[in-house]
């Protein structure tokens, strides 16, 4: 008998036009944290979907062994029964239900269809304890922050007695504190003998937590090694990208031009709670040819600030703002886009893409007027422009007619970025532009940002990743609870300083 709890052997998975997995071998020992890393589209999520039965037996080639026994999962229930749990990046909780209801959704303790809530509640309390949550099991999930929701997901997985727990980019949307806490929980699970598979683009975390690292590239296993002294983030990157990446943040000297956006005393009220201010008297400027970074913790109001300027958030807004010294009267996104003011949303699936549409239809969606005349949309122009962006941003796809729901997360992000590049913005707001994106692609996106700056665009970048804020912004604004707490030049900024202001320090 082998000492592996999980062995995946020679897995091959084809999609129309793409071989997503090509003879992948992946083995996990009992009670280890095994990191799975690779570029966008390398096949990580696909491999996990094969493992968890999302792609049933027969739709792929190769063998899956658990504790040495071959498994043929027909669906997720089968894999759960074999002790496999999966935590997705997009949370799958029912927001309007409470914690206990969510945890036992689909596997309620019931006799003749009548649910035994007392039992569920007491079990839930125990599970919450395990993941370090002190919340009442009756709390509705909506009232929890995203970090805690993630923990509820884990508790839900634990309720099913898992031996193998898969995390697919669990920390992508978490702030530093929540991520730290999550890593702590994962270590605890490991100590209880649960094997964790950990997928992330945050390589520092990988280095910190993993026992073993497997690298996938273009659907193939490149190597598997144990994480020790000699393993560095650079080594992981080299394996992922297939070449050495010397620099993570391409810093370029920018000379800021005139002010293109001036916001004065901007206040926005919460649309649900009318007398609560979400944004409180914010004033700032953005200049031509500079990257303005906006730092802050989750919930500081950075997204709300930008969305309200863009005309897509808030009903009661006070204050005013000027674009090119002209008072802006923006009633909705259309007005904003016409003024060259574009906003890339942080949630690409919910707010960015039309998943049923293909790549070209998504890229041209905000600028159809540019490629149409009285005879309608010029298909050929559409294809030409799409090809241009697919090449410029190296979007990995078999065809520009691929539906965006079939792209990997990172490639989806590149499609949304292309959409806004095509709209030819003067002021471009990027809300978490590199969330869920691999190091190589991140580097490309920073280069694109630098190119835009050279063309005289003003970029405002919201980011929760401090190294990124520090790495490429020219000027940094820090927000805390709807207020601006600091404005720093990049040269004087540091992680500590930003955190100080982001947590309300003065």
């Amino acid at each position, binding site marked *: 008998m082998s000492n592996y709890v999980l062995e995946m052997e020679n897995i091959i998975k084809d999609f129309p036009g793409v071989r997503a997995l090509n003879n992948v071998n992946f083995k996990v020992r009992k009670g280890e944290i095994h990191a799975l890393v690779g570029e966008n589209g390398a096949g990580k999520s696909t491999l996990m979907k094969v493992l968890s039965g999302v792609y049933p037996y027969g739709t792929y080639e190769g063998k899956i062994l658990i504790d040495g026994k071959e498994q043929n999962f027909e669906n997720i229930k089968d894999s759960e029964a074999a002790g496999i749990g999966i935590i997705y990046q997009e949370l799958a909780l029912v927001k309007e239900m409470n914690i206990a209801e969510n945890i036992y959704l689909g596997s309620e303790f019931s006799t003749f269809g009548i649910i035994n809530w007392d039992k569920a509640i007491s079990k839930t309390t125990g599970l919450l304890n395990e993941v370090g949550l002190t919340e009442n099991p009756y709390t509705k999930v909506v009232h929890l922050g995203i970090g805690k929701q993630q923990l509820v997901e884990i508790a839900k997985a634990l309720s099913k007695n898992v031996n193998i727990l898969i995390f697919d980019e669990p920390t992508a949307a978490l702030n530093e504190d929540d991520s730290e806490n999550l890593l702590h929980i994962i270590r605890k699970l490991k100590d209880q003998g649960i094997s964790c598979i950990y997928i992330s683009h945050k390589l520092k975390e990988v280095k910190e937590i993993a026992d073993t690292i497997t690298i996938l590239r273009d659907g193939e296993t490149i190597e598997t090694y144990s994480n020790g002294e000699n393993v560095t983030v650079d080594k992981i990157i080299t394996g992922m990208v297939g070449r050495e990446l010397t620099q993570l943040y391409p810093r370029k000297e920018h000379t800021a031009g005139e002010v293109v956006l001036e916001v004065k005393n901007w206040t926005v009220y919460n649309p649900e709670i009318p007398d609560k201010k979400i944004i409180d008297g914010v004033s700032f400027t953005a200049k031509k040819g500079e990257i303005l970074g906006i730092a802050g913790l989750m919930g500081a109001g950075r997204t709300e600030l930008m969305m309200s300027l863009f005309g897509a958030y808030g009903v009661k807004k006070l204050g005013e703002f000027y674009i090119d010294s002209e008072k802006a009267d923006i009633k909705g996104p259309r007005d*904003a886009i016409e003024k060259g003011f574009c906003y890339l949303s942080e949630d690409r699936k919910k707010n960015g893409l039309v998943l049923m549409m293909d790549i070209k*239809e998504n890229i041209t969606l905000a600028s159809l007027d540019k490629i*149409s005349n009285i005879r309608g949309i010029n298909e050929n122009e559409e294809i030409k422009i799409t090809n241009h962006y697919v090449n410029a941003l190296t979007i990995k796809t078999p065809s520009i007619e691929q539906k965006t729901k079939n792209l990997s997360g990172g490639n989806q992000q590149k499609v949304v970025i292309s959409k806004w590049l095509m709209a030819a913005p003067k002021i471009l707001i990027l809300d978490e532009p590199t969330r869920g994106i691999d190091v190589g692609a991140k580097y490309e996106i920073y280069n694109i940002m630098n190119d835009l700056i050279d063309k005289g665009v003003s970029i405002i970048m919201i980011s929760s990743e401090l190294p990124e804020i520090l790495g490429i912004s020219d000027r940094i604004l820090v927000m805390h609870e709807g207020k601006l707490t600091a404005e720093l030049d990049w040269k004087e900024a540091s992680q500590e300083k930003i955190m100080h202001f982001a947590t309300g320090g003065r």
Partner: protein
Amino acid sequence: MATKSVEKYSSLEIIKMSLRNNIRQYTMFIALIGIMLIFSLLSGVFFTPRNLSTLFLQTAHIAILASGVVLVIVAGHIDLSIGAVVGLTGAIAAILQAHYGLGVLPAIIITLAVGALIGLWQGYWVAYRDVPAFIVTLAGMMIFNGLLLGVTRGETIATSSMFNKLGQDYIPTLFFINSPKDMLPHDTTIIFLVFVIVAYLWYELKRRKERITYGFDILPIKLFALKIALVISLITAVFLIMALYLGIPYSIVILMVIGSLYTFITTKTTFGRHVYAIGGNKEAAKLSGINIRQRTLWIFISSGILGAIGGIIYTARVGSAAASAGQGMELDVIAAAIIGGTSTLGGQGTIVGAIIGALVMTTLNNGMLLLDVGTTERLIVRGLVLLLAVWIDISSRKRDA
């Protein structure tokens, strides 16, 4: 890497890819042919030019209405008031002529305007007052049915024979008077056919030339010829059926115009693209600067106008307006759109599909009537076919996910 470079694939692979990408349209089309074959085997009368021409006549208004409802459903809404609108606008057209002495043309224009107003009313509530379309059009159904009862006072109003041509008659011949018996094809229909084929060829060749100037991949010449030959023989078959009977009915001419117009709108225009985006992901559409309210208003105005056109054709075909006209028609129309591949979740659907769906529904009805199947069984069969079509669609989508 970006475009599929066709050179790399063999003809067979290209055909396979195209089949896979348009599987829904092809399955429905094949199903339609299958149903027609079965009826031809069971009844000697079915596959005659005469019966098929009647079948087209019966399909016209359903197919026109289905084209409009495709937009509505694609945008994520529904229109339950279609039947009531058909009844009401048909009655208005009839009354304007019978009681107010208006000519056919003015009556039609006013009726279309009423249709647009109805659409404006319903669209306003859906788009600007955020009332779900289900409720707005359910209310509309009751209101328009009430109005219909009011304007007709429960009477049946006959329409003029001039007006009835729209629903019953065929375009005139130019040179030869033909009759169904002499097997002499209807001359204007043949001229029409030649015209359509030339237009189609011109379009395909122009497209090909443009793709070459852009330097894009094109179909290998053999496949290109095959595709054109297939489409042309299909068009020819349809036209010949009509030519061998009395020619093209006016209502089919109207259907062709509307079908082409709506295909153009849905595939080639900004408006059409926006409708699909709204149905696919409303949030993303909004943040992309699409004016959702205004688009929604226009979708309902279009549905109202097509409702009026359907009302005119239907009334003309029946030859009179009555308080019961159009009842339940929305169900046939929605079923046609859905059988033709329109997704009830929004974001997906085609006009050609809806027209095929309408043909499936009427073919079933027509064929079963020929076989003397009772109303009970006919309703049951059509219900089952709807269920089956959606199930096949859903399971085929699951497989390729």
